[in-house]
């Protein structure tokens, strides 16, 4: 009774406060919208610069929207640098890395979640402990391993650093624990299903969402990798986009227009991919360590 009264009172105040609340909401929306515009403004500037003529780039004060938009920068940069090859290298590297990480993480995550042997628990603790070690810490020995195998300046050399992902194993394990009941596996075993069949036909389909999230996460991790490709890939033909662009901009003549055109060519597809994959990506990230 008291509850319904207080509820009615609350509704009453709400009705009275409604117009004020509306203005507040509009104000917040406007503020957030402004903030969002500020967040992507640097990227818009970059894309705008890509269409500017050399004279306009050097103009003061700087213009925001190109006055005589031109595609020359794009033609010039594709003609004078192996940009397309770098993009190809990056795509190959990111796809392969994503594939390897999904494969290794799915099986290891499943086993570590559902097979309760003490020795496996120790393995899991080791995996978890290495998850916090930054890549840059163990990069030097890894470089010599790649060198010994003759993998420098190749996609395989790049891949060496991105074959497994401790966090990926952890992510899949958590998902298996939450999403796959023991009873389901037991039932399949009683029906005479082999362990491998169970993994392939029961576990993997149930993990689709988590695997997609991990694949997207792994792809972007490799796509934005910098220190490792910079060290391993030292010939122009083996650069990834990130390395190619970074070295291109340190050249003696920095042509801002071309640089922006190259950057825009790299940005636009990855941002588009992200917007499409957003749900998977967000799911993957928000799972990171927030759940017990």
């Amino acid at each position, binding site marked *: 009774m008291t509850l319904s009264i207080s509820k009615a009172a609350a509704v009453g105040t709400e009705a009275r406060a409604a117009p004020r609340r509306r203005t507040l909401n509009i104000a917040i929306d406007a503020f957030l919208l402004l903030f969002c515009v500020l967040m992507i403004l640097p990227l818009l500037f*970059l894309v705008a610069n890509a269409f500017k003529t050399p004279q306009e*780039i050097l103009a003061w004060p700087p213009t925001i929207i190109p006055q005589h938009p031109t595609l020359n920068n794009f033609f010039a940069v594709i003609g004078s640098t192996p940009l397309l090859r770098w993009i190809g290298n990056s795509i190959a590297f990111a796809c392969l890395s994503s594939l390897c990480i999904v494969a290794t993480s799915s099986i290891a995550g499943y086993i570590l979640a559902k097979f309760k042997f003490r020795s496996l628990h120790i393995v899991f603790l080791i995996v978890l402990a290495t998850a916090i070690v930054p890549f840059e810490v163990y990069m030097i*020995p890894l470089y010599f391993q790649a060198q010994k195998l003759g993998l420098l300046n190749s996609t395989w050399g790049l891949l060496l650093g991105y074959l497994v992902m401790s966090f990926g194993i952890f992510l899949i394990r958590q998902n298996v624990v939450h999403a796959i009941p023991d009873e389901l596996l037991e039932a399949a075993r009683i029906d005479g299903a082999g362990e491998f069949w169970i993994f392939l036909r029961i576990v993997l389909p149930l993990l689709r969402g988590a695997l997609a999230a991990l694949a997207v996460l792994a792809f972007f991790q490799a796509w934005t990798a910098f220190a490792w490709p910079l060290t391993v890939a030292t010939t122009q033909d083996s650069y990834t986009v990130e390395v190619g662009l970074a070295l291109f*901009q340190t050249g003696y003549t920095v042509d801002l227009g071309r640089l922006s055109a190259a950057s825009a060519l790299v940005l636009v597809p990855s941002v588009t991919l992200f917007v499409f994959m957003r749900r998977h990506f967000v799911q993957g990230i928000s799972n990171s360590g*927030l759940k017990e």
Partner: protein
Amino acid sequence: MLERRRWLFAVAALTPTLAIFAWVRLYPIIETLRLSLFKWDLISKKQPFIGFANFSQLAGDQRFQQALLNTTVIAFGVLIITVPLGMAIAGLIHYRMGSRLASIFETTTFIPYVVSLVPAAMAWKWIFDARLGPLNAFLGLFGISPLPWLFDPMLSVVCVIVLCSWQALGYAVLIYIVGFRNLPVSLFEAARLDGASGLQAFWHVAIPLLKPITLYVSVVTLVSGFNVYAQAYVLASDSQGAPGRQVRVLVMDILDNAFRNYKVGYAASEAVVMLAIVLLLTLVQFSLLRERGAK
């Protein structure tokens, strides 16, 4: 019998992954620890054991100290900007969850986080450019004379902090939004019935409840701050165009020593220092979380 078959399957299925894991993770980590105690110049076959000499040399190395200082300033600078701002923006987005624009807000704040580092850094490089950049043009509107953003050692650290915060913010917002969603709604209703304004509820109810999230975001931000490299590499090249010399950071110093100065053992000892910092930060996070659990 059945147990044994399952055990065999587990081992057989896990072996390839574990073998790769040991090969490209465990071994190099252990090798880094080992190398840090040796002197190795990359060319000679000899690798004499020198104990902690590398570390005592680090203590007197001015370049290393500069790098450590810069990196620490950057990491904490990013933290101070990202965490409060991320929480506030996430709170507002959560508050307007019903709005038709909500998904636009979420996506847009997150875009900088997925954008490739180097193109993003180039965009900012133009903004900060002393002669051509819009930042100085904008400041000029208020009668502020142009500043050499990328050529002054102090200002260029600020620039790196701004760039890194811009990138890290989307992640913080995302995690905080998840945090806000998981907060019990009943508490906010109770607060409202008690006459608390939205702002008061945010301050007295949401912030304390979000403490674990804040800790998590802080540690992740700090750790990635200590790994800063590409941003400094692109943004802070010196007047001759040598990348990153203006703002020397830890990763750059490590790579320089290993592959330019051929002091591999020495570089490994720097990497060990970095590892120690990251471990320390993680331990602090865990102990703070446990403290909260004990209360």
